[in-house]
């Protein structure tokens, strides 16, 4: 992952980026192999993406990011590529859940979306809840991210829902494992 003060770039997308945009179904791991599917992230929408995205880069989208399929391999591809965070005006349900499960920070923040352009240089400072935009002249602009819900914070602390479950034997937010139904 990125060093604490690495400068990364912003990849700006529009509204309604769907799971077929993020990873077309014909490039599912089943079709092309577990080891290479991530190379097809945004293959149709932004063919240059998978080859030039750097660990820690920030994806910015409009409304309803991730609508469509339940395919977890779409966000998995972004995780393999090291995407640092996704900021959007809103997220589709299943995809948001998949992002959460994989521990990819996802923020619903229209004002941050408005402030960022494609190619912007930023420092992603998750621990401080902010993105810092760095201009060519070295000036810095702080963009405050909304607070992460407790449920998600528990997940991010462990890295993923799986890691959380393995450590605690329960789901985040669950006080203790309930008795057998």
């Amino acid at each position: 992952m990125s060093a604490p003060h690495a400068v990364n770039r912003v990849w700006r997308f529009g509204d309604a980026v769907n799971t077929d945009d993020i990873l077309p179904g014909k490039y599912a791991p089943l079709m092309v192999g577990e080891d290479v599917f991530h190379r097809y992230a945004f293959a149709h929408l932004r063919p240059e993406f998978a080859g030039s995205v750097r660990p820690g880069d920030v994806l910015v989208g409009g409304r309803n990011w991730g609508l469509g399929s339940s395919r977890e391999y779409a966000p998995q591809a972004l995780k393999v590529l090291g995407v640092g965070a996704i900021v959007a005006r809103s997220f589709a349900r299943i995809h948001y859940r998949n992002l959460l499960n994989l521990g990819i920070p996802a923020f619903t923040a229209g004002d941050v979306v408005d402030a960022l352009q494609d190619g912007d240089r930023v420092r992603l400072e998750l621990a401080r809840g902010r993105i810092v935009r760095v201009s060519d002249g070295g000036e810095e602009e702080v963009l405050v991210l909304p607070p992460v819900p407790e449920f998600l914070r528990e997940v991010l602390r462990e890295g993923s829902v799986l890691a959380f479950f393995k450590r605690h034997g329960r789901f985040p937010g669950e006080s203790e494992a309930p008795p057998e139904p």
Partner: protein
Amino acid sequence: MSASATGAAAVTDAGERWPTTLPVEPGIDLSGLTLAERMLSVKAGRRVRAGEVVVVPVDQVMMVDSIAPSALGIVEDELGGVIRHPERVSVVVDHVAPASNVQVASTQQRVRAVARAKGLRLFDVGRGICHQVLMEEGLARPGWVVVGADSHSTTYGAVCAFGTGMGATDIALAMVTGRTWLKVPETVRVRLTGERPPGLSAKDVALEIVRRLTADGATYASIEILGAEAFGPGERMTLANLAVEAGAKVGLVVPDDALRRRYEVPPWLTVDEGASVALEVAVPLAALGPVVSVPFQVDNVHPVADHVGVHVDQVFVGTCTNGRLEDLREVVRVLDGRPVAEGTRLLVIPASSRVLQDALADGTIAALVAAGASIGVPGCGPCMGRHMGVLAPGEVCVSTSNRNFMGRMGSPEARVYLTSPAVAAASAAAGVLAMPETGVNP
């Protein structure tokens, strides 16, 4: 003919109603709660409201061939390998069925071996599309929580099951724990009003609901569908199927006497019209007619009349949305003896082996083949662009499926128009997008 192919799982093979496994008495005050709140309250064992997070037992877990490798891999590699209730897990090989290449074949070979070793229900190549198969097999029942590794798992809402799609991690955890976490959804109530006009298809109604709500208008919500009494069991699957295209977590068709004739329905599983909902939308059926979802967004819905004449290279009739016996029969009815137009291909893929059997028995398949249709192996076909009918650059497909995203069925330069089976048939005969009754004359 079995009732199941038209009706998507009417009754058990013995002709009995599907029994319930849920308590008849909830033991919880459910007054003033929405359908989704009632279902999750009973499952959670306490009264819960929209916005709360609950962890609930799962009645059925469904995986398809494209997700099963990773979900089963997580179970094996990360979670100790023990599946809590193997009898509550179904694996359906439908997304690339039969296998299209050695890579896919090898992956499916592994999935089959694991499914057998762990005692999971395996529905192999040719049995059909996951949602159709689970309904036919009685593996989704009123009030059940069914989680599927496929976004169109909302389909189970046709029998008022809490059916919802999830990714591989959630599915793996559901298999190992027998539970899942859910945020109790807000409710968007859709009330179908007035008489259903003859010829109005469930697909037209479902697309109109998506148009009205938009692709994110019901995000994270439960859509309660009232007034669907005039729609048959398979048609209700079409309605519930497309709920996810408005962003919904579930699409629940309110139980009625027709449902109670096919399933034991717990008495508490009923709509409370006094429950507070986030939004209520009335859809007057008399005002509706044939519509088309124009690429590249499902909520981009317009009257077919506005788009007649668009050249069509391929017509695809099938999928979990519209691949049932009644859909295939509707194609034959609208074709009315006409052949498929020169320069157009008609591909028909029955949603399940039962649909195929019934369509063979009643002459539907013979009529389709006589018209020039190709018949595919029951399964998802080219819906998500992997095999059996993918599109070339510049090609146009009229499809009875549920998504028209860029590149969905193959080339990103192909265009997919979503319609009812009737419009698909009219378009196959005309070679251009056409109206069911009036052809190219809007």
